[in-house]
């Protein structure tokens, strides 16, 4: 949006406000149609038709939902902690809003191009955990509390592998500027050099967004929506807004970092419209993958989630980082990046699958396990 807006009147703060307004508008539209797309895609997976009533092919369903949410009564439980409860949705939403700022969509289209863009996104996106905790705690509801605690544990753990994967890409590109990273992929996208990083990025991203199979904090069948259980109307819609915008931002970021963004495979400087199409196609691809995963997978349990993060994801991403370092410092051929990363990816998946299978086959004294857990919890 650089060329569109320029520096309006040359006044910095007016310019900033305008940019924020643009983000807000784009985000709303994106979210409205993402919810529609998700319902439609999942419906097709389930051999249903999905929304068809509102507008042609149900296209306006998202708009109708948004209107409904805005018009609904905004309830607050009497025992809720008023300020914490009411501010929590914004605390969830604002960080996602802010990450939007640094994502370049094409070479010239973006809100701001920061030289520390990647670092900025990582730093800002970690903040919305606070919002979930506030919502979980402020609702004064046990489901919400359980969800809030789960959210905190999960998001803080998955922050680490997420950062480690983008760090791998940043190492290979030796820059933190997302535009630079993207444009270094004019020949080979980084998914080729860092397949492990890409997979872990999606996994950790799903966990960060609380989406299936990591939707443990908001698990509908267990904690009935978790932190959001007491919210209604416009406040609840902010959670929704945050979830789907982070889905969009993360997909766009993934497209930029791993799939060659708006550059690959059309040389170093395709025309503007082609750049836009490229980034949209790649982002949609990421989003569709995530929808597909959502329609397919069961949910993990919180302890499995945590041990998967700390015992599998973090070791392999750290190992990848280490190998990246070796390759880059000693200037080994690039192909070794792929070899190491791919080997780690295959090894990690195989090891996980074998571990699950073996644990499933091995008999176990169930009562003893449960007694031990209970004793451990009692601190006896």
């Amino acid at each position, binding site marked *: 949006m650089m060329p569109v807006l320029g520096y309006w009147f040359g006044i910095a703060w007016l310019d900033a406000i305008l940019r924020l307004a643009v983000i807000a508008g784009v985000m709303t539209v994106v979210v409205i149609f993402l919810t529609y797309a998700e319902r439609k895609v999942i419906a097709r997976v389930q051999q249903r038709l999905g929304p068809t009533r509102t507008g042609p092919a149900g296209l306006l369903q998202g708009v109708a939902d948004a209107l409904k949410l805005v018009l609904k009564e905004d309830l607050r439980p009497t025992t809720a*902690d008023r300020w914490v409860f009411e501010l929590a949705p914004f605390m969830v939403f604002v960080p996602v809003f802010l990450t939007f700022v640094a994502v370049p969509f094409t070479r010239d289209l973006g809100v701001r191009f920061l030289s520390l863009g990647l670092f900025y996104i990582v730093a*800002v996106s*970690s903040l919305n955990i*606070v919002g979930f*905790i*506030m919502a979980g705690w402020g609702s004064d509801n046990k489901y919400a509390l359980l969800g809030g605690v789960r959210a905190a544990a999960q998001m803080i753990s998955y922050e680490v592998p997420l950062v480690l994967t983008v760090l791998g890409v940043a190492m290979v590109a030796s820059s933190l500027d997302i535009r630079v990273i993207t444009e270094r992929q004019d020949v080979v996208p980084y998914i080729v050099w860092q397949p492990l990083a890409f997979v872990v990025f999606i996994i950790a991203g799903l966990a960060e967004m609380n989406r299936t199979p990591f939707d443990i904090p908001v698990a509908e069948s267990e904690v009935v929506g978790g932190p959001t259980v007491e919210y209604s109307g416009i406040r609840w819609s902010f959670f929704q807004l945050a979830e789907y915008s982070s889905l969009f931002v993360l997909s766009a970021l993934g497209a930029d970092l791993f799939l060659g963004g708006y550059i690959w495979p059309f040389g170093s400087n395709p025309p503007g419209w082609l750049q836009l199409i490229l980034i949209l196609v790649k982002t949609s691809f990421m989003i569709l993958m995530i929808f597909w995963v959502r329609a397919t997978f069961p949910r993990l349990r919180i302890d499995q989630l945590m041990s998967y993060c700390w015992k599998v994801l973090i070791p392999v991403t750290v190992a990848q980082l280490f190998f990246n370092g070796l390759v880059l410092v000693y200037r080994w051929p690039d192909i070794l990046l792929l070899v190491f990363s791919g080997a780690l990816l295959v090894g990690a998946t195989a090891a996980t699958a074998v571990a699950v299978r073996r644990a499933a086959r091995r008999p176990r004294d169930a009562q003893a396990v449960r007694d031990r857990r209970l004793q451990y919890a009692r601190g006896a």
Partner: protein
Amino acid sequence: MSVEQWVFYVLAAIAVGGAAVTVFARDIVRAALGLIVALLMTAGVFVLLSAEVIGLVQLLVYGGAVAILILFALMITRAREVTYRLDGPQKPLALLAGATLAAAIGVAVVGTVFPTNTDHINPVGFVEMSTALFQTYAVPFEVASLVLLVALVGAIIIARQEERQ
């Protein structure tokens, strides 16, 4: 006043407010939330000073990680409203320590000569900082990280002790 000054005052006011909440709130989770507000506003001040890296680190480490851990711990213990006085026999000592710290900061602030011309700031780049941290001051940096390691080990030992009881 320039826009920057306005922004600064707003940030500072909110930061002080957050700090006040931290100190005076009777509800311990609210106190933690107040702390988060204060920390975030400090990050804003850093950014205002063109120290983006420090600002972002502040966000990531204090806002994103430390504060969350505090909140997490508090939520699990579920200690709500504190109804009794928290004063202990250490109160005079605490006052003394607080006063000393305040004096030190005050002296530092008064004693420093701040650059008055803010039109030319030389932001410390990421690369310079990295070089400083990992080459020039590599040893002190690593030593500092040892402290964290010790803290981790200590925490585990304390937790284990409680478990054994």
